[in-house]
């Protein structure tokens, strides 16, 4: 993975010094809250429901054991012993003090980490396929391109006061594991007919109040024009994105209002102009970055055999591992969605400092010192020898990290909701816990199979409910929490947006409604259909009938 050179380290150190100075001025009173707020947001620091919240960047979801260990130590030193992994592959701490924030950023900088632009009206963390560099189905590792874009977007002076936030995603396979079409810019690395590698640009996707799937704006941008074309996209947005209404300020509204062809034309014009300005790094820079992403030294004699005689282990292998491009290896998913145990329910995406450090140790021991954070709030160990899976699983069991529920109904994506977030209308975590309890029985959830359930506590959709096979949206109904049910969303290559079933429910009602929906699926399922497939085949009517009678 990428390692800073002296220049990267200088930049992140300068940023720490800048923020330390800004914080000092705020606390001394020479900088008002109005002026300070955008600055602290661009260092990931929110004022949230109970305290300041710090969102640390995990660039394209990749981190080393040492970095993961630091995240655990920060949870202990500055927070209350845990962290929350987010739907943009980052980590959040909920109990931060403003006066500690500069020191936290300094600690992060010591392991090549930061909280740069993880909030604010600027280009945010660039996300990528969590199986990058390990999956057999990718054209090429997308992360060097994400790193090139990360550096280009960091402190870019023209784009630090955009109309609104800007989220970019890079993938390199037809199997979209990163919800690419639901980003402001989604890039798929592709090969053209001449066999050249380049980038397909999808612009104008997003969730929130007005979910939209990004249309294709340009089917091929050569690799040596990636930065110039990206800059053209951003400049058109900075100049013409709406600034009159916060809820219409994302680029998806601009693309929708101009029409994709007109937006593409304006970008093409700007692109032609910018190509004369020499802003593209030389291809040697991409090659330099790529050199950090070569394959680890896979053992070519590693055995493909796994002894599955332990039933619990076998179940975990079936559920949580994925095929690896190297023979004898597997991709391992660590679920952060534990099932309730002895009356104690887990919290989706949360991990204790000890668990975080354990995962760091396991990455060092079993995965070539590398981990990934997924946008579904789980962790990936990308390169594990099949021969090591049993020992790894045993260590995960001991740390309460061996829940075998990847992509099952209990692998719930939930935003922090009204328990933590000042934007929320309803709590999302208790709903996730009740659903987890209802479907905790292994037989029940196994029968249902793949079902991506996503919960958002408000219309901002940080829980990605529009993209859930089952989605739940928390709303405020005359001062009480109420929940709407959506069906049929999907974030893969066949991206679709969930449709609302009808009137909302209270907390118990929504859990019953989810169960009724799964009952309809089980009653109508044909062959190997997943919930999503059955829904797409039979439509909303049977579900509506069962839920509302």
């Amino acid at each position, binding site marked *: 993975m990428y390692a800073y050179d002296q220049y990267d380290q200088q*930049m992140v150190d*300068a940023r720490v010094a800048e923020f330390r100075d800004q914080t000092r001025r705020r606390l001394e009173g020479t900088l008002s809250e109005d002026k300070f707020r955008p600055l602290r947001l661009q260092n990931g620091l929110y004022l949230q429901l109970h305290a300041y919240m710090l969102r640390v960047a995990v660039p394209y979801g990749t981190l080393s054991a040492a970095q993961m260990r630091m995240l655990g130590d920060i949870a202990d030193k500055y927070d209350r012993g845990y962290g929350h992994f987010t739907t943009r592959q980052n980590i959040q701490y909920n109990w931060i003090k403003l006066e500690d924030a500069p020191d936290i950023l300094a600690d992060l900088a010591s392991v090549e980490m930061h909280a740069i632009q993880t909030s604010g009206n600027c280009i945010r963390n660039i996300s990528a396929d969590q199986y990058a560099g390990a999956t057999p189905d990718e054209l090429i590792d997308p992360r060097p391109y994400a790193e090139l874009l990360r550096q280009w977007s960091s402190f870019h002076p023209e784009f630090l006061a955009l109309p609104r936030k800007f989220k970019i995603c890079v993938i390199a396979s037809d199997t979209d594991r990163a919800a690419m079409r639901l980003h402001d810019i989604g890039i798929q690395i592709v090969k053209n007919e001449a066999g050249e590698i380049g980038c397909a640009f999808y612009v104008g996707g997003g969730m929130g109040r007005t979910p939209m799937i990004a249309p294709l704006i340009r089917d091929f941008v050569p690799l040596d024009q990636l930065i110039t074309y990206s800059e053209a996209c951003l400049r058109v947005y900075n*100049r013409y994105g709406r600034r009159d209404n916060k809820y219409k300020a994302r680029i998806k509204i601009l693309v929708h209002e101009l029409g994709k062809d007109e937006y593409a034309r304006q970008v093409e014009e700007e692109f032609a102009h910018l190509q004369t300005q020499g802003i593209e790094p030389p291809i040697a*820079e991409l090659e330099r970055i790529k050199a950090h992403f070569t394959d680890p030294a896979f053992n070519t004699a590693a055995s493909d055999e796994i002894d599955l005689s332990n039933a619990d282990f076998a179940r975990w292998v079936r559920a949580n591992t994925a095929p690896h491009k190297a023979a004898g290896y597997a991709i391992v998913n660590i679920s952060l969605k534990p099932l309730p145990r002895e009356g104690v329910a887990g919290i989706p995406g949360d991990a204790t400092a000890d668990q975080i450090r354990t995962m760091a140790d396991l990455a060092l021991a079993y995965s070539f010192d590398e981990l990934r954070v997924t946008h579904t709030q789980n962790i990936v160990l990308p390169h594990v020898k099949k021969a090591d899976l049993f020992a790894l699983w045993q260590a995960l069991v001991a740390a309460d990290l061996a829940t075998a529920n990847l992509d099952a109904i209990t692998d719930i994506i939930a935003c922090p909701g009204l328990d933590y977030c000042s934007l929320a209308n309803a709590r999302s975590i208790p709903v996730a816990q009740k659903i987890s309890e209802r479907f905790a029985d292994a037989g029940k959830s196994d029968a249902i199979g793949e079902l991506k359930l996503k919960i958002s506590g408000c219309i901002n959709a940080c829980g990605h409910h529009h993209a859930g096979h089952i989605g739940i949206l928390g709303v405020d109904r005359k001062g009480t929490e109420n929940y709407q049910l959506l069906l049929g969303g999907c974030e893969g290559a066949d991206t679709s947006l969930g449709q609302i079933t009808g009137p909302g429910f209270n907390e118990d009602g929504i859990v019953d409604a989810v169960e009724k929906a799964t009952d309809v699926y089980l009653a109508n399922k044909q062959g190997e259909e997943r919930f999503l497939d059955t829904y797409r085949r039979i439509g909303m009517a049977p579900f509506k009938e069962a839920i509302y009678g």
Partner: protein
Amino acid sequence: MVEVQFRFRDDEVVADPAVTVDAFGEQTNAAAVRIEPGDDARALLPHLERLKLVEVNFPAFTDGRGYSSARILREAGYAGELRAVGDIGVDQLSHLKRCGFDAIAPEVELDPAEAETAFAVWPQVYQATGDNRKPIWALRHGK
């Protein structure tokens, strides 16, 4: 006229009153124009030779359109005074300079010591933005 607190040019401060973009189009002897966030900076490109001063207004520091306007003008070859005016704090100074502004007139005077620190925040830069600073990728590859 609000005082030009920071200036990076050797010539005299341009004192001509800046007219609006619309008025500038009509007054063939005007040499100073003010761009508002909603104006298209490219409307000035046919007139660059007679321009001594372009003011770019930032009514709110959170409206970043002026940064694009500045770069567009510099990219087109405008070499006259490019002055940022309006709601400008010390924390915007380095970004303004990077985008090509060589004169800054904040509506509220800034602390000189804080400003000096702010201009010097970035030991290096990641992007080529026409301010003559060599981006890191150029340093890495001997360009």
